[in-house]
């Protein structure tokens, strides 16, 4: 587990109020009560701040599960090893 992956897990679990162990790549909005459109933006904003990247509106809309967020961040140079 890389430190950056841990950070993603921390963001998702904090903002959605779920245990860190529930955060997997396949976790998607439909499965979590608090993952609404506002919190989706909150997650993208928090990830942007923590990793120092800027996600476009299109990129935010394209994130359908945790794995997509990781992929989007990785494409912007954030390392997940």
């Amino acid at each position: 587990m890389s430190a950056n992956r841990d950070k993603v897990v921390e963001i998702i679990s904090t903002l959605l109020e779920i245990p860190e162990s529930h955060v997997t790549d396949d976790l998607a909005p439909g499965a979590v009560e608090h993952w609404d459109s506002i919190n989706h933006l909150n997650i993208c904003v928090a990830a942007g701040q923590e990793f120092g990247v800027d996600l476009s509106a299109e990129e935010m809309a394209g994130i359908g599960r945790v794995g997509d967020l990781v992929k989007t961040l990785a494409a912007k140079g954030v390392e997940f090893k």
Partner: protein
Amino acid sequence: MSDERRILADITAELGATPTALATTKAQRKLDALNADAAGLLERRVGVLASFTFDMLVPPLRTRAYTDGFRFDVYNAPYGQYLQELVNPASGLASHQPEIVLVAVRLQDACPELYYGFNSLTAERIDAICGQFQADLGGALRGFRSRSHARILLTNYEQPVYASLGLAEATAELSQGAVIGRMNAWLRSLADEIGAAYIVDIDQVAARCGHARWDNAKMRLLARAPIAPDCAWDYAGAVTRVVRAISGRAKKVLALDCDNTLWGGVLGDVGIEGIHLGHDYPGNAFRALQMRALELFHRGVVLVVASKNELSNVKQVFETHPEMVLRPEHIAFFGVNWEPKPGNLRRAAEVLNLGLDSFVFLDDHEVECAMMREMAPEVLTVQMPGDPADYEHTLARLDCFDNLTISAEDRQRGAMYKQEAERAELRQGATDLDTFYHGLEMRAIMARNDAAGLARAAQLTQRTNQFNMTTIRRTESDVLALMNAADSDVVTMRLVDRFGDNGIVGMAIVTREGDDAVLDTFLMSCRVLGRTVEQTLVAWLGREAMARGAKRLVGRYIPTKKNTPFGKFYESVGMTLESDSGETQLWVCPLDEASPTLRLPGYIDIEVQEGATRTS
């Protein structure tokens, strides 16, 4: 001191000046678990009425409120429904029974043409747009006010990021800035009119953050959430500083370390000639900090020095170093010795008669800061950043020393506390109280319904927490109304003694109810207590009421966490408890010469000044 206070102090320090959204939310979760009483938090039900998506601002608002000493229970109304929420007595807002209502209406949302279509508007059309908005919001707020006593916080309107007129904005008679300025002036007058309403200066904080950074087009277009996430903490601070000021939670004392805070270098090592202080870097960075501190002093903030040093060396710098901005006359208390600093601040709090929770402590040293948070967590401890160039902004952005208005007393208060510390020394010198009281050569100047004391009178109701028998907060317009009313008198008391003018230190509002003269408000600045001043004021008020035909003097007492030390005051001056509802006690005495309550202690000469506000 409770662990809860310490946790709050540590989390506040960790958050720092620019926390991320993740840090803010994490802190909020931890702080939600604290016991409010043990942590010294005031609980407030807050209703938010916004013209935009406010959801993202709720966590920063609640977290920042915690760091300022409040737990907010927030009701966030659906965006854009502020008018309905205000006028509907059965709205979600109404059922939340808010103590504070934040009306976060952006002019960009309510009157978008003023921002995005300005160039196609005629002067008449601008008037019509502004007039319609004023009628809508003004009307809704007046209606709401008739049903609720909640404090109303009104966000004002910011300048456009990019002026529609381009370069001509600077010279046009009818510029966008002028129109927005006019709307801000209207909002101020509306706040005055509806009472217990206060301006949240978003215009200022947006400028501070930078308008181009403040307005986040992506979030605005995507989610109608225009305030940039990076500015959310600043937005929250603009709101909570008002809540702090209207709740008597403003900080009053700034305690400053010396070495590497007020000047560069260690005085004991390099001597007075070797410290960095002057007009070139890095000496000018320390001067810049001192100038900020002096500005606060002239706004009424009491300055204290807390340093591990030889007192004589530090005094020598204050007295003789040519580049010092702060001089001995600005410092109310020198806590300079080799003892731990928390003890020195406690001693300063005793001498100045101010609560430790009204102290801010600045020090460059990590260990000193950690020790203060550990031993005195009620003090707001701020560690200076590594680069002295950042010092002045670190102090300036604290935003915690606020008064709603600045009165003449504020400009002199720092000096008054200096005198108070000298009086404390006299008290130690006098062998008995009688000699001490006489030695003070006190004069009380009573003013009745005097509009000149209006700002100070209102401020006393907002700031005084301890010797305040009813703790009813009032605005200037509230006090003016009481001055003008036939059945009430507003009395202020100025105290002068041989050390100087203490300014207006006491205040009472007396209402006439049949044969009773009722002390609706009776309060006294704590720094003059213990000098028979409070007994003098109540006796004089009783005598005045008797001269006007009242048969009884009635003192109301509403206990709070802060004023319980004075719960026995009315009893101590010979009044008897007539009733106690649990919330309010009524203390009474008959108005006749035999009544002990009317006995003037005799140490204070009294002068009376009638105000010009009312002719009666």
